[in-house]
C-alpha cells in the first residue's frame, strides 16, 4: 500500500448568515509513495493550502479519508514537519534555538538534538549563523532556518506551503536545489504546495494540478526526469513539454484559435 492515500477528501466552510456552505475542496483523491515529492499546483486561493492543512491534521475535513502509513489523520501528528509561506521564526530566539523549538516541545532537546540541528544548519549553508537573531538574516536565510526547524525532529512527512513564494527568483531556484539536496540525503517524503509551474515540475516526482475553487484535481502529471536535476534540466525539451502540459491543465495556456 502507498505511503499516503487520500480518498474523496472534501472540505466545506460554513459562512455566517448563509445556509449553503462554501465548498473549498470538491474532491481530492491521490496517493504517493515513501520518499516521493508531490506538488499540489493550482491558482492562488484554490484550496490547495487547505488540503495541505487537512493532511497535516490541523483542520478537519468534511468528508473522505486521509491515510498516512495506513493511519487515518484526524489530528496533528508530531511525526510531520511543516514549513509555512513565511519563515515565522521567533524573534526572541537565536537561529539554533529556533531550530530546536520542535525538540523542546517534544521534550527531546538533548545533545543529540543539538548536533542534528547544527548538522542541518551546516547542510543549508548556515553553519556560521547559529547564534544570529532572525532579524539579522535575509528572507532566504530565514526560510532555510524554517526548513531546518521542520526537519530537526526527523519527520516522516514534510509538508510545505508555498515556502519559497515570497523569495526572489534567484533565491527561489537556489532553495529548490537545496530542497532536492536535503531530500536526497534525508529520504524525506514531501508534499509541496506551489502556484509556480516551473517550481512544481522542477521539484516533483508527481504534480497534481488543481482547478479554481472548489478545488479538484484536473490533471495528474508524473515527472520522470532523472534526479539530480540541475539548471540544465530547466532548458530540456522534456521539461518544457511538462510545463506546457501543466499550463494547459491550469487553463493559462490556450491553443491559438487559428491553429492548424
Amino acid at each position, binding site marked *: 500500500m502507498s505511503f499516503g492515500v487520500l480518498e474523496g477528501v472534501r472540505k466545506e466552510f460554513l459562512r455566517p448568515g448563509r445556509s449553503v456552505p462554501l465548498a473549498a475542496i470538491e474532491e481530492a483523491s491521490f496517493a504517493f509513495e515513501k520518499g516521493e515529492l508531490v506538488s499540489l499546483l493550482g491558482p492562488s486561493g484554490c484550496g490547495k493550502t487547505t488540503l495541505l492543512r487537512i493532511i*497535516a*491534521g*490541523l483542520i478537519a475535513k468534511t468528508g473522505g479519508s486521509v491515510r498516512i502509513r495506513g493511519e487515518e489523520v484526524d*489530528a*496533528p*501528528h*508530531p511525526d*510531520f514537519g*511543516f514549513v*509555512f509561506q*513565511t519563515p*515565522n521564526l*521567533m*524573534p*526572541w530566539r537565536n537561529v539554533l534555538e529556533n531550530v530546536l*523549538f*520542535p525538540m*523542546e*516541545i*517534544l521534550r527531546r532537546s538533548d545533545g543529540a538534538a543539538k548536533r542534528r540541528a547544527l548538522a542541518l544548519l551546516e547542510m543549508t549553508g548556515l553553519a556560521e549563523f547559529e547564534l544570529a*537573531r532572525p*532579524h539579522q538574516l535575509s528572507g532566504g536565510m530565514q526560510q532555510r532556518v524554517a526548513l531546518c526547524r521542520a526537519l530537526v*525532529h526527523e519527520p516522516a512527512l514534510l509538508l510545505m506551503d508555498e515556502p519559497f513564494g515570497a523569495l526572489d527568483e534567484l533565491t527561489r531556484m537556489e532553495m529548490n536545489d537545496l530542497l532536492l539536496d536535503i531530500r536526497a540525503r534525508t529520504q524525506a517524503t514531501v508534499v509541496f504546495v506551489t502556484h509556480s509551474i516551473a517550481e512544481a515540475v522542477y521539484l516533483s516526482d508527481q504534480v497534481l494540478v488543481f482547478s479554481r475553487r472548489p478545488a479538484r484535481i484536473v490533471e495528474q502529471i508524473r515527472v520522470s526526469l532523472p534526479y539530480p536535476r540541475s539548471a540544465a534540466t530547466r532548458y530540456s525539451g522534456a521539461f518544457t513539454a511538462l510545463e506546457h502540459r501543466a499550463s494547459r491543465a491550469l487553463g493559462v495556456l490556450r491553443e491559438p484559435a487559428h491553429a492548424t
Partner: protein
Amino acid sequence: MRPDRAAGERWKRVVYPPLGIALALALWHWICVQFSLSTTVLPKPGLVLAAALERRDLIAAEFWVTLKETVYGFGLALALGVPIAVAITASKTLNLMFSPILIALQSVPKVALAPILLVWLGTGIESKLAIAWLVAFFPIVVDTAAGLQSTPRELLELARSLRASRWQVFSKVQFPAALPYIVTGSKVAVTLAVIGAVIGEFVGSSEGLGYLLLTATSQIDSPLAFAALFALAALGILAYLAVVAAERLLEPWLPPAADRRD
C-alpha cells in the same frame, strides 16, 4: 555615515540639549525681569534653585514618599494586570464575564475614585498606592491582552502540529511574543502611576511631593512649589528610565527596535 561625521553628530548631541535648557532658563529669567513679575506669580529660576537647595532634605523626604507610592502602585499593577490579562485571554468564559466590567471601570475617571478610596483606606500610603495602582493597571491589562492575542497564527499552528500542551504554547510562544507589548504598556503605566500618586496626595495626605506642592502654594511659597514641581518631573523621568533599563535587560527577548510598536 563616515566616522568623522558620526563624531561630529555626537558632539552636537552632548552640547545642544544643555544649551536648549540654558536658553529656556534665560528666557524664564528675562520674562520675570521684563514684566516685573512678583515672586509669588513666577519666581526667578535662581530663587527656585535656592529654595531647592535650602529645603533639599524636605524635598528628598517627600520625593522618597511619592517614589514609594509610585513604585508600589506600578508593581502591584504589573503583578495583578499580567495574570488577569492572561486569564481573560485564555478563557472565553472569563473574557465574556469580566471584559465588560474592565472596560466600564476603565472609563471611570480615576480622579473621581480618589475621594472614595481615601474614605476606605485613610490618608496613609495605602490610598495613594491604590490610586497609582488603579491608573497603571488598565494599560498593562489592555496591552498584555493585546499582545497575547496577536501571536502569529502560524506559530500557534506550528506548536499545535507538534501537539504542544497548553502550558508549552503559553510559556514558549504566546508569552514571549507578548513581552514587547507588556513593555510598551509598562512605559505608559509607570508615567500614569506617578500621576495617580500625586492625585492621591492632592486629595488627602500629610506627605509626598503633591502634598508639598499644595502646602507651598497655600503658604504662597512659590519658589518651593516650583522646586517640588521639578522634583516631580525628575521622579516621572526616573520611573520611565527604570522601565527603559528593564527593557534593556529583556533585550534578548525582544524583537529588534524597528519592529516594536512604540
